């Protein structure tokens, strides 16, 4: 690639000192000069390019195909992505960045209009690795039907960043009539999860290699906007939606219970957890309800629409494992209770902080 003269704007540097760096990212790649232009032209644009991004202005101009209908709202979200290792079974930081951001929009019922990504790169990062991340972002964006319309690149001195961080932002449109924010759950609603829990968290922990754990568990990271659209297309009056990411299902449900001012009762036997996830949790002392997911959603729907919602979710590849796991109760407020398999009851609490394996 270093001998490729064909790309305009990427001429050889005038100063003889900096050699054409193509194998590794150097500080100059973030300097805004020729090296930056070269990185954008050669690495990012071939993968993520589209007319809006390619216009190269300071801000992306998003053309609306039709005027926004009355009652439609704009949704705006931002997210910073730090994950070690950068590649893990089932995904990587690039896929995570696209999916996490699209999912944040999807959970308020928004359809994505465009996504922006800022890359903070550690000096010395393998350029081929960065290209693989961009490849993965291209694929995830295509899956989600969203374009990366704005971007930025900065390079930090070696040791100041752990490889690569990606910060994203996205805007989307919520069609009129949709309101599925966390405050919408009502007594009698059914609580549905779209599939089995805990896979992303364990896949990343195992990929770090310091768990003394070999496993076949693969991250579930995926864009959920299609699944959400399927739910609305089936005519379901979705009351509340959340993707149980950090803090797991426990944190997502506690937040909905608190914001909606309702209590929830879950049926432990109904909560889907794969056997290999359950076994790893047993060994390490983790609760599957505390592990993060990146491709699952929890939906609150009126009880009489539960069957319709389940059918709509199950017809989509990302919702094949959808099940009802509980219901919203009249009281006590802001409490998530779990009926255990042996018939006891306990509270589902949010994890305190960092997940820590227990001693014995």
């Amino acid at each position, binding site marked *: 690639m270093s001998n490729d003269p064909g790309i305009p704007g990427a001429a050889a540097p005038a100063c003889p000192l900096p050699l054409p760096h193509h194998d590794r990212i150097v500080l100059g790649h973030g300097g805004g000069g020729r090296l930056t232009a070269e990185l954008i032209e050669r690495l990012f644009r071939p993968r993520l390019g589209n007319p809006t991004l390619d216009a190269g202005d300071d801000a992306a101009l998003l053309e609306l195909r039709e005027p926004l209908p009355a009652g439609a709202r704009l949704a705006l979200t931002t997210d910073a992505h730090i994950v070690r290792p950068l590649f893990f079974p089932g995904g990587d930081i690039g896929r995570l960045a696209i999916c996490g951001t699209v999912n944040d929009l999807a959970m308020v019922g928004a359809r994505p209009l465009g996504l922006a990504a800022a890359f903070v790169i550690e000096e010395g990062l393998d350029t081929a690795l960065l290209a693989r991340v961009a490849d993965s972002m291209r694929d995830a964006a295509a899956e989600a039907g969203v374009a990366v319309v704005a971007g930025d690149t900065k390079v930090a001195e070696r040791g100041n960043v752990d490889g690569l961080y990606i910060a994203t932002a996205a805007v989307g449109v919520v069609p009129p009539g949709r309101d599925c924010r966390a405050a919408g759950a009502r007594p009698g609603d059914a609580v549905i999860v779209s599939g089995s829990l805990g896979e992303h968290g364990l896949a990343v922990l195992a990929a770090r290699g*310091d*768990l*003394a754990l070999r496993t076949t568990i693969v991250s579930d990271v995926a864009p959920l906007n299609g699944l959400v659209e399927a739910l609305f297309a089936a005519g379901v009056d979705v009351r509340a939606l959340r993707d149980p990411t950090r803090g797991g299902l426990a944190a997502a449900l506690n937040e909905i219970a608190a914001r909606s001012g309702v209590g929830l009762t879950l049926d432990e036997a109904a909560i889907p957890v794969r*056997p290999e996830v*359950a*076994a790893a949790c*047993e060994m390490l*002392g983790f609760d599957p309800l505390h592990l993060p997911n990146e491709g699952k959603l929890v939906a609150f729907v009126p009880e009489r629409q539960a069957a319709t919602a389940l059918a709509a979710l199950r017809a989509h590849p990302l919702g094949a494992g959808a099940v009802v796991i509980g219901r919203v109760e009249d*009281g*006590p407020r802001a*409490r998530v*209770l779990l009926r*255990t*398999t*042996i*018939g*006891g*009851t*306990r*509270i589902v*609490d949010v994890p*305190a*902080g*960092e997940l*820590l*394996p*227990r*001693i*014995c």
Partner: protein
Amino acid sequence: MKHVTEFRDPRLVHTALSELHRVVTRPHVIMEVCGGQTHAIVRSGLDQLLPAGIELVHGPGCPVCVTPLATLDQALAIARRPEVIFTSYGDMLRVPGSDGDLFGVRAAGGDVRVVYSPLDAVEIARKNPDREVVFFAIGFETTAPANAMSVLMARRRGLRNYSLLVSQMCVPGAMRAILASPGNRVQAFLAAGHVCAVMGWREYVPIAAEYRVPIVVTGFEPLDLVHGILMAVRQLETGRAEVENAYPRAVSERGNEGAQGVVREVFQTGDHAWRGIGVIPDSGLYLREEWRAYDAATRFDVGHLQTAEPAICIAGEILQGRRRPTDCPAFGDPCTPDRPLGATMVSPEGACHAYHRYGRVREAIP
């Protein structure tokens, strides 16, 4: 999860529970020694399904909870040193010492790492010959063999930069101390299955005889626990006081003698302080004289540190089964798992943490 799901089978659990309801004729106070059992009981809600007369009290078998505050302060002092890589089981990072915890040391620039086995710490020492690698060797008979093995490995590899900060305790001494205390209410014990998997159950025979107390070796799944409680209650109802094994799939009379041999080679017994309880004779393990070079407390000269507990915390009485977490004026406010005042609120195996996490709040659950 073969060999686990069977022991959570609701039908089998309920069959055992009905038998328990049939057998009980009067109130009994039973202590489950191990924090892992406390956690399992509250997590599954088993305590709500027991006959009203059966009171489970939670024992001192949480390694995070009973590690003395002075040892924690030693750990913090060592972990702050720039030449040290301080390695620990994850649980210990959140336990508050007199001024902060290991998370805080790490945030301030200390090199504190979570490992899953002390053998990983030995490997870190091998890869970092210019650093001092210290492993926080805490726990009961369950962790002692691996901790002892790490020292053997370090010597075999000729490593001079590896040492242990040891706070290693043995369960039988604590059971004796509880039985001998004037306020004791405990009438029977569920002995900790994992401890017995290593040590066997022989050493409990003299305790059962001397104090006339039933001791039932018990596992950690709901069916194991009901089975253990049922065997203890049958003994209490018929006036027997024997050691029985309700966990034969993991525990034999003599235990794992290979592991016991490794422990004896490296450690010797001595009196040990238990956080919240005090000094218990012959309840601790210490590095033998010939292994003193691997003792971090000596190497970094932190043996003199003195400490004091928060006055309001009743962790000591909870660990001895005299009071319940909800009896504490600080329970839930200001003491929570996020801002623990005492060690029983820190570890998921601590009684206060388990109560708080699974909603054993002062109000009743519907």
